[in-house]
């Protein structure tokens, strides 16, 4: 209560100030400078080729997931077809690059994402004008229909979408500036990083504008937003178009990165992936989709290396987040912010210890589940390749009773122990938040 009151009291004070002080400017700029520095030095820390590729993919995914969150998180529009704008941005960027190469136009590669932005915006305006008439579930279904429309068309209009093999290009053939030819991955990484930081700043700034606030109002209560004098449909439409713009930039960056765009870029799987990234990271605050994009990209590259059924793990992860942590990973982290602010360090330490205590059985349960999935998969699909599989550097015989018994014991035991530790965690949490609340009151 007091926290809300203080927040409300703070706003006019900050806004009334005609010129922000140097300290305020520094506070505003510092996180973004830190981010830019982090992007700049990351390749020096992770030097392998795989890491560089993955970092590039993460940068693209961050832009894409944040653009998705402009819809789901900020405006409350659940879209199942966001890849349409990503993919079409990519296709138009590729065609633009090929035209530039063909006609020898004086356009350098770093400007190509602008093409993606314009085309994403244009298609956002076109499809948004029909689909944002409805909100909620109807919007979700319509977005899926539009997504299917475009991805089915991509196999029919072969001239534009390049059929199954897609449209390829050569990023090194454009006008060179500062003697950069964008052949090596490191140069492409810095191009992506620069655009990523730019887009992040732009999208964050957008959430701070009156328009961003209206998006939130439309998400929370469209009727009241209408009473204030804003047409919810118009707000949704603008948010949708702008989300298309940033998705188009992400698509163009992907086109530059891969030098190839095919119909998978507009497909349902890509739409599902961005939804997964944004939601698992947490749609409730700005940093959530960034966390989700990094995690999902990493998991996707790593898991698909280790197991054939990585998509199953993705689905289970998603269901787990929806059921038990609907605010995503960032929501779980932000839950602890009041404790941190109240300086309830001692109870936080106790809480951390109970977390560790609960983590152990959770890991046992997880190991059991992984064992179960992998052994079932091996037994049913890969039976021809013998009956032994190696997991966690231990060999398991998928036909032996012992291995299955171990699996059952791990799952049941892990679940039981987790259930036992949960009340302890819950009690520690309540103590900590009570203390934080008390401290907040005392202040």
């Amino acid at each position, binding site marked *: 209560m007091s926290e809300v009151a203080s927040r409300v009291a703070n706003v006019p004070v900050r806004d009334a100030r005609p010129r922000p002080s140097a300290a305020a400017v520094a506070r505003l700029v510092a996180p973004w400078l830190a981010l830019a520095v982090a992007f700049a030095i990351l390749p020096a820390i992770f030097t392998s080729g795989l890491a560089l590729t993955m970092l590039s993919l993460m940068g693209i995914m961050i832009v894409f997931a944040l653009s998705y969150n402009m819809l789901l998180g900020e405006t409350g529009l659940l879209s199942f077809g966001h890849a349409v704008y990503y993919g079409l941005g990519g296709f138009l960027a590729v065609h633009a690059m090929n035209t530039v190469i063909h006609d020898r136009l004086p356009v350098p590669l770093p400007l190509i994402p602008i093409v993606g932005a314009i085309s994403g915006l244009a298609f956002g305006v076109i499809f948004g004008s029909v689909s944002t008439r409805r909100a909620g*579930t109807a919007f979700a279904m319509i977005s899926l*229909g539009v997504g299917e429309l475009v991805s089915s068309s991509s196999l029919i209009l072969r001239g534009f979408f390049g059929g199954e093999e897609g449209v390829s290009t050569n990023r090194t053939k454009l006008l060179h500036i500062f003697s950069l030819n964008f052949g090596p991955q490191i140069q492409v990484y810095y191009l992506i990083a620069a655009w990523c930081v730019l887009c992040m700043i732009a999208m964050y700034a957008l959430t701070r504008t009156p328009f961003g606030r209206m998006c939130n109002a439309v998400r929370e209560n469209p009727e009241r937003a209408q009473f204030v004098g804003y047409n919810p449909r118009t707000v949704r439409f603008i948010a949708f178009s702008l989300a298309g713009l940033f998705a188009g930039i992400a698509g163009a960056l992907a086109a530059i990165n891969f030098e190839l765009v095919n119909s998978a870029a507009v497909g349902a799987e890509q739409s599902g992936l961005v939804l997964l990234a944004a939601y698992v990271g947490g749609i409730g605050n700005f940093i959530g989709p960034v966390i989700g994009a990094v995690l999902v990209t990493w998991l996707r590259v790593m898991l698909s290396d280790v197991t054939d059924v990585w998509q199953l793990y993705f*689905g289970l992860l998603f269901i787990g987040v929806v059921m038990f942590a609907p605010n995503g990973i960032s929501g779980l982290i932000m839950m602890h912010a009041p404790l941190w602010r109240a300086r309830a360090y001692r109870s936080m330490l106790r809480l951390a210890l109970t977390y560790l205590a609960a983590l152990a059985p959770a890991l046992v349960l997880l190991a059991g589940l992984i064992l179960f999935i992998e052994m079932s998969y091996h037994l049913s699909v890969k039976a021809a390749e013998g009956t032994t599989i190696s997991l966690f550097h231990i060999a398991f015989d998928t036909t032996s009773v012992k291995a299955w018994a171990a699996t059952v014991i791990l799952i049941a035991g892990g679940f039981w122990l987790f259930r036992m530790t949960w009340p302890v965690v819950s009690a520690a949490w309540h103590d900590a938040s009570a203390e934080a609340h008390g401290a907040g009151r005392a202040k």
Partner: protein
Amino acid sequence: MLELVTISTLNGVLYGMLLFLMASGLTLIFSMMGVLNFAHASFYMLGAFFGFQISQIVGFWPAFVVAPVLVGGIGALVERYGLRNVHRHGPVAELLFTFGLAFVIEEVVQMIWGKAPVDYRVPPSLDFSAFTAFSTNYPAYKMFELVTAVAIFAVLLGVFRRTRAGLIIQAALTHPDMVAMLGHNVPRVFMLVFGVGTGLAAVAGVIAGPALVTQSNMAGTLVAILFVVVVVGGLGSLSGAFLASLLIGLVQTFAVSVNLSVADVLGGIGVAPPSGGALSDLWNVTVAQLGPIIPYLLLVLILIFRPTGLMGTREQ
């Protein structure tokens, strides 16, 4: 021409009725619980695979009964232990839960039966031609599909409109608190509706499996079509879903048999279509090729001209 029209009409109605079997469950669940079941087509797929597996062991007819019951049971369990817990996080969380579920079901089906189509065949007792229309033999199995779909539709409508159970369901839909006050277990009614809805999808799967291809990607394409049916018909309207199912079934079936393109039409009236360019395909695409995207075009058109759908009421 008459032959084409007759056969296409029969096939279109058949496809439309199959769509309706699924769309009715989807609509019922949606109007009752406000949950859009993204995994509805996945239950259809489970029905087809269960039907295949069970018919391998005990034959088609027992499978025809057992598979939908099993799938309906799974659906009820999903409602009881999954959806009901997610409910407090709001409708978006519920929709996302079923989205994740669709993902998981597809993967599990791939794990068990692989990615290739399984050999799910028409039972020998129905493997003959029912009648000959214009020198084309019309298979008895398709007639069986049609009759089953129509019968289920009739039973469903009868139960819903004429029995006490239907009355309670309808009341629980609009006045859940009052129904609970009268001593009915509303959550259990929801569980049953979800179970029956998914069971209906499974019936469609069992009977459509042998006629179409039974493989692990059969849900993916269908779910979008189902959503089109539900939106075009009007969200939550059973009769709208019926109309839209038939409409889409007929349109898609007829489209396949029309081999005409814009270029042909323009050529017919003596205008040469522009040639070349990235969009030259636009002129040469035939209606038959467009078949798969016609439902989505219909969706966009409906949204422009009648945003509430054919039989939909105004959005609150």
